[in-house]
């Protein structure tokens, strides 16, 4: 039997236009905004540098920076430094990825690897890599090895944990289906888990490539005879702020190039996920 109960007090829902949190803009607007995102700060910098409010030595104008950059290109310093820095990121980031991806893969798949590795990596990743510089110099000297080691230290822990997260997200159902279809562990790892996780692994690499690029420059600021960071410290000694600006812009552009490249690779590899 249905018993009769008194209804709770009435609420009057007044008509009101509720807006959704997420909004879209047209493609055209998006491109205008992208351009503004670069051009507005550039214009602000330019205006400030020619206004006379700040001394030229502290804030060189864009044309001065361009000229300083050209000088460094013509002298061959900038290309040589760029190559040195890129070589270090190639070696350091490459080594970090070669360690992190298998380790993360193991953590995401093998039951014992997660509890064994997560606590220690969880602690290590909070130790700032830059704080290891003195130790690395004591251990490895001031040569290339200590710089590459700094890069590895700065990136490897984050990349391992991020890879482990991605690998863990492979649906259990997909692994069960694969086992029922007769695929053993090695086959499942290579033919199921790896392809499924690859786009996410590349995403993790993209985030960490940015960190790696930062660490290259940090390493070169400390003790180096080549590289973009080294070029900055030299320019500082002679108060050549225009050169510093030019190098910073090059660093930014290279970072952007790395990011876009990895994005393109990811879009290609992860076509199925769209």
């Amino acid at each position, binding site marked *: 039997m249905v018993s009769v109960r008194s209804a709770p007090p009435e609420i009057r829902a007044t008509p009101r236009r509720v807006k959704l949190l997420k909004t879209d803009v047209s493609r055209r607007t998006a491109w205008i905004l992208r351009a503004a995102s670069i051009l507005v700060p550039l214009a602000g910098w330019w205006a400030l540098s020619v206004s006379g409010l700040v001394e030229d030595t502290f804030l060189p104008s864009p044309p001065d920076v361009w000229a300083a950059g050209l000088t460094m290109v013509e002298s061959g310093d900038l290309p040589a430094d760029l190559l040195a820095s890129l070589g270090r990121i190639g070696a350091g980031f490459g080594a970090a990825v070669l360690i992190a991806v298998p380790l993360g893969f193991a953590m995401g798949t093998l039951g014992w690897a997660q509890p064994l590795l997560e606590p220690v990596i969880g602690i290590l990743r909070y130790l700032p890599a830059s704080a290891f510089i003195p130790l690395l110099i004591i251990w490895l000297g001031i040569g290339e090895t200590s710089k590459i080691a700094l890069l590895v230290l700065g990136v490897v822990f984050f990349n391992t944990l991020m890879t482990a997260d991605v690998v863990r997200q492979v649906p259990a*159902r997909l692994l069960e*289906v694969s*086992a*029922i*279809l*007769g695929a053993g562990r090695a*086959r499942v790892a290579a033919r199921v888990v790896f392809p499924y996780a690859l786009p996410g692994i590349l995403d993790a690499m993209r985030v960490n490539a940015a960190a790696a690029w930062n660490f290259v420059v940090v390493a070169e600021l400390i003790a180096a005879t080549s590289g973009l960071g080294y070029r900055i410290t030299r320019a500082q000694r002679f108060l050549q702020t225009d050169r510093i600006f030019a190098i910073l812009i090059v660093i930014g552009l290279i970072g952007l190039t790395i990011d876009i490249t990895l994005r393109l690779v990811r879009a290609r590899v992860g076509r199925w996920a769209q």
Partner: protein
Amino acid sequence: MSNGLQLVDVSREYVAGIPVLSGIDLAIEPGELVTVVGASGSGKSTLLCLIAGLARPTTGQVLLDGQEVLGPGPDRGMAFQTASLYPWRSVARNVAFGLEALGVPRAERDERVRWLLDEVGLTAFAGTLPGKLSGGQQQRVSIARALACQPRVLLLDEPFGALDVQTKEDMQLFIRQIWQDVGTTIVMVTHDVEEAVFLGQRVLVLSSDPGRISQDIPVDLPEPRTLEVRRSAEFLSLRARVEDLVRAEHRAHQALKRHAGSS
């Protein structure tokens, strides 16, 4: 040694002392099409997992053609409610996955895949990625993939639960067709009583708390089963009978949960 699928006094506990399934004795002949219905909590999916080898029985034995099932393997195929396809592999390569694992040579693999895609009506989609398919098409791929290694038993765990009514009807006829063409044993779990009665040669009704086989009902409806069969008096009365059984189990299960919640 007897052929077919046998469960001998099987029980399964996930938490010690609380069996999800208990005292399951079941024999399914080769080539039978058996459907399993039950309220939630009756352990119907667990039953399939035990046959698939994804879980081991806490007590008792699962035997396939006299051999104990110790783990998953290609002699039993399975399809789930989520098609769980490999999203980066084309339809044809999804179907080929099990054959690759078995080490079937390329030419034979291609031939089998072609036959299966033809059987499930997806030849035109051989090169398509699963993400581009409709839910019903995905489920067809999933079933074709499960059949590729010619399993002795095909296990279906609510494969049409997420499909719209019209697609579901198509898929039911499709399963019947597959079964006639391939001749494999099929065990299908569903919560849809109409589907269970329409498809099964036998309907097993599971009780809850713990899951047991409470009824094993032979379905004597004309073959081949056409959609008209669903309007016949025999079908309707059988459906009503099974519905009443499942509803009673559902009520009992809810009452028990409320009781457990209030204590």
